[in-house]
């Protein structure tokens, strides 16, 4: 199976992805509420929130802040398209990292100490998860006949999950970090009333905050699609796998307390990295 690369598909992917991400966020909020014995907001609540934010008065502290917010969105959309259309996986990683970097720079270019702390924590998280993403791409390269193309898993006979089980587990941890889920939501959090945890987005308001929200919806869609790659044929198993992973993230989010940035760093560079390296070494040993 290959996704046709027509302009129509391009427009469709750009338009559908944020709605998909918003829907996932809405389901997440509903499940969280139910697990706490609450009713919870409507499923479409993130969409209402974003529309409202877009209609609010724009307040900006300086121009660079806004430029970085838009760069964050732009690079996120680019990374999403690189993934969906099966382009080079290393290019995808760079663009994805640059998107997060724009967010960090946006948080750094204002004078608020909360925003700066949030940015520093985001950098810490990047340092923690980037090696694992690179190892996943190396694993992808090894199982797909030495190809860095992201379209390779779609046509592979054997699902990637069978060769990369440990890397998949490591990726689930990265997923929790990227979705701002609870043991790892130190840079910014979905849960309200966390002044220092709101961190990186604290100086954004109105439509500029909406830009960050939309970028996060793209990010969610991107991560969902990436999990599907682990079991791309037949694709419904991949979709089930991704849905189960997202459900797991919600459960983990509700079950864990927030931990310190140093703990996350140590955990990622020992536990998660060990899993990833073991998997790559095993692959290397098998291929010998």
């Amino acid at each position: 199976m290959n996704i046709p690369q027509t302009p129509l598909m391009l427009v469709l992917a750009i338009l559908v992805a944020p709605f998909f991400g918003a829907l996932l966020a809405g389901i997440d909020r509903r499940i969280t509420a139910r697990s706490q014995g609450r009713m919870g907001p409507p499923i479409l609540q993130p969409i209402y929130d974003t529309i409202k934010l877009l209609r609010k008065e724009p307040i900006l502290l300086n121009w660079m802040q806004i430029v970085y917010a838009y760069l964050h969105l732009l690079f996120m959309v680019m990374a999403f398209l690189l993934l969906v259309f099966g382009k080079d996986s290393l290019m995808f990683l760079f663009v994805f990292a640059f998107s997060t970097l724009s967010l960090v720079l946006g948080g750094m270019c204002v004078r608020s100490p909360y925003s700066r702390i949030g940015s520093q924590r985001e950098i810490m998280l990047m340092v923690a998860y980037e090696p694992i993403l690179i190892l996943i791409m190396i694993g992808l390269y090894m199982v797909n006949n030495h190809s860095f193309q992201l379209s390779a898993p779609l046509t592979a006979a054997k699902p990637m999950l069978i060769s990369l089980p440990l890397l998949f587990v490591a990726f689930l941890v990265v997923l929790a970090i990227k979705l701002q889920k609870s043991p790892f939501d130190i840079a910014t959090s979905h849960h309200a009333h966390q002044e220092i945890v709101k961190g990186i987005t604290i100086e954004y308001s109105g439509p500029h905050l909406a830009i960050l929200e939309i970028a996060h919806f793209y990010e969610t869609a991107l991560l969902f699609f990436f999990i599907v790659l682990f079991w791309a044929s037949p694709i419904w198993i991949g979709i089930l796998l991704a849905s189960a992973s997202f459900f797991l993230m919600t459960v983990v989010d509700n079950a864990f307390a927030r931990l310190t940035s140093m703990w996350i760093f140590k955990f990622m560079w020992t536990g998660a990295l060990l899993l990833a390296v073991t998997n790559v070494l095993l692959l290397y040993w098998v291929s010998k």
Partner: protein
Amino acid sequence: MTAVPKFNKSPWVVHFNCNSCNGCDIEFLACLTPLYDLERFGILHVGNPKHADVLVVTGSVNHRNARVLKNVYDQMPEPKVVVAMGVCASTGGIFADGYNVLGGIDKVVPVDIFVPGCPARPEAMIDGILKGAQVLQAKHSGQTPLAVKNVLTRTPTPVAAPATQEKGAPHA
């Protein structure tokens, strides 16, 4: 489904304790519990005025915190709504005669909704915030004029010039 902007569906609330006895604050926090669950209306309790649409104020305003309240109000992007929670925020309540009390918060910021009660009941608070959300919608669609960029209606007057410079005194 209409294409009307859904201001009344997602009012984000910032809560400011303005010299309150904490009675109303505890009742307001009770609104977030599973029993009342504010979030089912899309109401989110945010800690940052820059993200908020509704300013919920508890307690009366005095010389000291008038400027702080004004500052929080000014940081919120338009359209915005102020809900005075409880009798103290509405009129000054039992503290109205206090030597340092200016009165209700409408002395400092324009108030859209007054919620009575001492302390106000969580049901009344939810009603107040949802009414505020309707005002938010009306303000956005232009049915209700936005509040004029107001100045302090009553300038906080220093009681007496202190003999020695107080540590950490707010600058003008």
